[in-house]
């Protein structure tokens, strides 16, 4: 990383020398370089984010921001590779430096941070773009606009397919009582066309149409698309919706006009596409002739289509843009960034595990262990498949393999020559130890079905053949057991396994090889 030193400020060069001369085990993690690089890379990503145009009429959606995230993944992965390479270069252990039992407790997280630092790029760019999107307009204005647009939705048929048409109140009620027959459904489809074209029994007038928004995409999606804070406002909307549902009231034209005018204001502000024809909509409302198009012009498909496009382009775009802005205001990062971070964290943990081993063993031994694990798992997988063991053979053999590795480590203290076998066992133990408790629990759960023993019968609320026959308490308990096992495995590995196994590797490393 000498190229970084050339462009680094004097302070970093001094830190570099200080760490090298006083704390070589920290220096070898390259943490000072990676943190400095993080600042540079973060600044670069922030700069790209800042010069990317974000407009109130063209705010970025979560997906748009994640596209930027994805683009920055390429330099991130390249830089990660470079840091991994750097972490392989200086090994205190391979050069037989002085060590202390608990030093790995500091080195391991520092190495993780070093590997993780390049991810600052995608997260910074997505944070900047998200913030820019959220700042295109005041929070209060967005909340006000969203509220009004939601209200206005009841006066606009926006072409969504989840509108249900009923020509009588009885039909409407039957539908909600669950007594709608197949015949009724096809009948409704037929009359829908008649309503559209003012033909048949609707040649002179339109029936009273009952619209249901219960299947509306916006409505249903609200539960997972919005933050907790937003959900409370959605709940309020739900009650309004339910009110219209239950009552199926004529909507107030005065109120309709007010909200439709407001929609046009929002369209002007957020989309700048064509505005709604408020008079046309009011006419339809007045004559109670809802359809999946608000046009009142008979047989004029072209116009109807155009009007529909206005709704699609203008109203929908304004709503969509508002949603993007609101989401950006409610969160620091786009929707999937959290999952990405978790993914990075896990990948980094595994990489650091491998790096740690690499610094403690010869690279040939390291590659050999990967080969052995691969061959062993393939073999027991084949035996499992051929032998028709119903999934019992593979897990037990995997668990036994790890247990055998652990037991064999005892032999290391009595050795007076290097043993490649015990070295391999130590590598396998090191790789599997963090996950060993989970492996055991998985075996107990999946193969021995420990969570269905008599003890848990007290949680049974339905017949065991049903889906989720136990009470919620049972599933919560099971989830807690899994979580505790998982985290205790990691903590045990970190506090005890890591220092102990390092000592094992140092012992193996010091022994003379066979003549």
């Amino acid at each position: 990383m000498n190229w970084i030193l050339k462009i680094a400020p004097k302070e970093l060069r001094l830190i570099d020398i200080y760490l090298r001369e006083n704390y070589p085990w920290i220096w070898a993690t390259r943490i000072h370089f990676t943190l400095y690089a993080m600042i540079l890379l973060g600044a670069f990503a922030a700069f790209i984010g800042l010069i990317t145009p974000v407009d109130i009429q063209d705010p970025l959606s979560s997906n748009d921001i994640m596209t930027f995230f994805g683009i920055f993944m390429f330099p991130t992965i390249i830089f990660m590779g470079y840091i991994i390479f750097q972490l392989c270069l200086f090994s205190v252990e391979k050069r037989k430096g002085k060590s202390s039992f608990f030093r790995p407790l500091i080195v391991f997280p520092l190495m993780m941070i070093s590997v993780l630092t390049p991810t600052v790029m995608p997260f910074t760019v997505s944070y900047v773009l998200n913030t820019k999107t959220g700042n295109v307009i005041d929070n209060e204005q967005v909340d006000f606009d969203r509220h009004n647009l939601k209200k206005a939705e009841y006066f606009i048929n926006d072409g969504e397919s989840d509108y249900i048409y009923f020509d009588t109140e009885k039909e409407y009620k039957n539908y909600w009582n669950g007594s709608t027959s197949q015949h009724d459904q096809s009948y409704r489809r037929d009359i829908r066309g008649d309503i559209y074209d003012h033909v048949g029994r609707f040649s002179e007038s339109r029936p009273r149409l009952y619209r249901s928004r219960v299947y509306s995409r916006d409505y249903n999606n609200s539960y997972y698309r919005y933050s907790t804070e937003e959900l409370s406002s959605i709940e309020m909307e739900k009650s309004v919706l339910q009110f219209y549902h239950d009552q199926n009231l004529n909507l107030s034209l005065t109120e309709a006009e007010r909200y439709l005018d407001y929609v046009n204001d929002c369209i002007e502000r957020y989309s700048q596409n064509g505005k709604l024809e408020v008079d046309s909509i009011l006419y339809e409302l007045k004559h109670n002739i809802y359809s999946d198009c608000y046009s009142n012009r008979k047989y004029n498909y072209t116009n109807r289509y155009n009007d529909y496009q206005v709704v699609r382009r203008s109203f929908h775009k304004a709503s969509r843009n508002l949603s993007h802005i609101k989401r950006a205001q409610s969160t620091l990062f786009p929707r999937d960034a959290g999952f990405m971070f978790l993914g990075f964290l896990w990948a980094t943990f595994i990489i650091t595990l491998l790096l740690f081993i690499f610094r403690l063993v010869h690279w040939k031994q390291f590659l050999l262990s990967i080969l052995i694990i691969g061959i062993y798992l393939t073999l027991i997988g084949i035996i499992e498949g051929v032998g028709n063991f119903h999934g019992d053979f593979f897990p037990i053999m995997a668990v036994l393999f790890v247990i055998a590795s652990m037991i064999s480590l005892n032999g290391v203290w009595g050795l007076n020559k290097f043993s490649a076998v015990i070295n391999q066992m130590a590598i396998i133990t090191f790789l599997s130890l963090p996950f060993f408790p989970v492996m055991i629990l998985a075996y107990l759960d999946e193969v021995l079905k420990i969570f269905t023993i008599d003890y848990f019968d007290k949680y049974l609320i339905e017949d065991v053949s049903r889906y989720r026959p136990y009470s919620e308490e049972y599933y919560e308990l099971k989830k807690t057991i899994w979580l505790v096992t998982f985290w205790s495995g990691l903590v045990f590995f970190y506090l005890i396994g890591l220092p102990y196994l390092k000592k094992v590797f140092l012992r193996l490393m010091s022994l003379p090889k066979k003549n």
Partner: protein
Amino acid sequence: MCGEISSSDGGLNFYEGERKIDTWEEIKENVAFIPQRTDRWWGTVEEQISFGASIKGIIGEENDEKTNFIIHRLGLTNFRYHSWSQLSSGYKLRVEIAKTLVWEPRVLILDEPLANLDLLAQELLLQDLKDLANSWKQPVSMILTSQQLHEVETIADQIIFLKNGKAIFNGGLDELKNQDEFLTVELNGSFLYDELDLLLTSFDVRIEKNASGYTVNIPNSKSIKELQLTLINSDFELSYFRNITNSTKKLFSDKY
């Protein structure tokens, strides 16, 4: 000896004062080994040497001082910011030695350190090794293997000559001289074996022909000077003459 491979027979004991060191971890904290082919390293010369010192507990100002001292001592001052790929084989070896000496091992073992060096570099390195071994500040016991016998003999206090896996000589060069009743020289010139044999009849010689000329053994009762005079006064032209009586080189002879 340095714990790289296990011994097939016998044993070695390491002592620190009266205390016997019996674990390989501790032995390797005192004994350093520089193999013939060193692994590639990364970073600069200075980083490598300073890092080598600090991991052994030489930290702070002491680290700085020792790093500078050893860099200067081994003539690496102009190369301190060079990387591995910017150094010649000789300087790579110097860096290896510097990386090792900076943490002050009690014993330094070098495997064929002269193998990849030109003549000038060999001389320089041997002189450096001799100076370091005799340093008043930081004397180090050194064990090195080499096939450049003449060069190594100029600095070695003690030599172990291995032949077919057996030590056929173990001692100082003076002991070698007193070991037998022959004086041995290497020579070459414009003569054939028979002509040389005829010329040196009066010396009761034993002549062996080898690739570079002849190895001549004369009894102790004669002197090297007599031999030289005989050769100079003859009609033959002498192109090479070297007295190896005090050299382990004579141990290559079939006589041994």
